[in-house]
């Protein structure tokens, strides 16, 4: 059974007096443990689709189901709870908190998800060990390389065991070799723990690790 589904999702934005359609009837489903690459040119609607699937934006029309729960676009106040329970994000710019160590970055995300105290600390250590950063727990982001920062971001996304992982251009700021290592690690961890992983990308290396590649153009998915 799919863990993430989009049914005929459309999204429009108002720009002044004009309404600009960004997504037009997009349908997509990801199974647990499936790795999907979402490709498309700039302005094709990739990030908007990622935002809707990640319960950051509500669709103008259509339906999104995350881990069996239908997202009610009329109740934006309920979206944070779905994000806490079911979704882990990895961003192009890492988006780590500069004042927190690697361990604290992961632990804080767990705190937000409701895991507190020693349980959060243990889970954060486990997640960082899984991305091979067990020896960098007390390092601040400024003391980590780009690849290490992205590993921390991956650990943060994995922590709390969300069934859906969404990554936005995770290798865009990394060199080819490090980017490849991160992708392989990310895929392996997602597969091992049966998480659905959707990666928005321009990077051809993603094709190599994806089970499926989906193209988006002008707000529509292409086969």
């Amino acid at each position, binding site marked *: 059974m799919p863990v993430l589904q989009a049914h005929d999702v459309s999204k429009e934005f108002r720009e002044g007096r004009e309404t600009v359609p960004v997504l037009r009837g997009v349908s997509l489903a990801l199974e647990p443990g499936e790795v999907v690459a979402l490709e498309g040119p700039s302005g094709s609607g990739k990030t908007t689709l990622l*935002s809707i699937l*990640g319960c950051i934006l509500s669709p103008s029309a259509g339906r999104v189901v995350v881990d069996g729960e239908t997202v009610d676009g009329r109740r934006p106040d309920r979206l*944070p709870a779905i994000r806490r329970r079911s979704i882990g*994000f990895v*961003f192009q710019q890492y*988006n780590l908190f500069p004042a*927190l160590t690697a361990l604290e970055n992961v632990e*804080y995300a767990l705190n*937000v998800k409701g895991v507190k105290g020693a349980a959060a600390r243990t889970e954060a250590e486990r997640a960082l060990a899984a991305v091979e950063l067990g020896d960098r727990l007390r390092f601040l982001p400024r003391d980590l390389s780009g690849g290490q920062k992205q590993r921390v971001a991956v650990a943060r996304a994995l922590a709390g065991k969300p069934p859906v992982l969404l990554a936005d251009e995770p290798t865009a700021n990394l060199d080819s070799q490090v980017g490849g290592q991160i992708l392989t690690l990310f895929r392996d961890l997602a597969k091992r723990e049966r998480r659905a992983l959707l990666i928005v990308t321009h990077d051809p290396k993603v094709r190599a690790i994806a089970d499926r590649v989906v193209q988006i153009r002008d707000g529509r998915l292409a086969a």
Partner: protein
Amino acid sequence: MVDLARKNLLHDKLRFLITVSGVAFAVALVFVQVGLFLGLLDNASITIDHLQADLWVTSRNTPNVDFAHAFPDSLVERVRSVDGVERADNLLLAFINVTQPSGAEETAIVYGLEDFRRWGVPWHVLEGNLDDLRRGDFLFLDASAERRFGPFKVGDHREFNGQRLKIIGRTRDALSFTTTPLAFADFDLTQRLAGERFRDRTTYILVKLAPGADPDAVRREIQRRLPYNDVYTKTEWAERSRTYWVASTGLGMNMILTVFLGCLVGVVVVAQTLYTSTMEHLKEFGTVKAIGGSNADIYRILGQQATIAALFGFVVGGAMAWALRPAMAAIHLKLIVPGSLAALVFVGTVLLCLGAAIVSFRKVARIDPALVFRT
């Protein structure tokens, strides 16, 4: 629990220092301004506070203890005959010209009483025996008079309204709101010094109640017998004397304005630095939202940062004000900071800092978490 608020705040130490400095400046300003104000007001009623009188009989509409008007001193007999009055004595308070050895003229406020010891004034005697005041043309002079009269010592003589008096004692802390030096002399001598205008007259009648007497009943009866005088309890009279200076001199308004400006500076500094910090951390707050945090989580972060700034600012500002006390004392200014004022300033500081954070609340409430996807 990871304390993102504190770590973010302390991560940029320079900004934190600026924020704390702003709060500390405001706190110190409020403490110093209000403390000096209370110190001045303390002088306005210091003799009332120390005189062990339960009731004060004054001439009608006397505005404060220093600006006394005279009435017949024989009225004291009517007061003494009231049931519930243990003792009543005349107190004559007069501004007297004092000729200095240099020829300069100064003024002193002379308190004239028959028996100072009975009424508990002066309360700090440095030298001399109060009982000797009845034995001749003698007086006690407060040490603070040296600022106006120059150095003096027991045994020196000064001319009070042209009469040569011997200083037989020194007191301490007997001050007036007007900074005019205080002296203490026998009642009859004070009447003589004050001149014809005060012949057979007094400015106050001090009343000590008998144990168990009903103050209101005694007061009503005195008022009935002396219909052209006013009768105040000690507390009322002290309050009236202080209020006069607050209301009639603009001192109160000046203090309120300075406190307001101090608070405004503090709020603006905190609001500005928190807002700038929020703008710089916008993407981080977006990330908090993206990983499932709500607006309430971010409000908590900002609120906690404002509270931390308030706590540090209060401590530093309080320490600054405390450190200024010796400097104030050196220029003969009292800085009075009662516990209630400290508590009020603390609560005010926290509330104002939280209020300053509201500007940032409005900004983060509108953060679009989708900004985390923007490069």
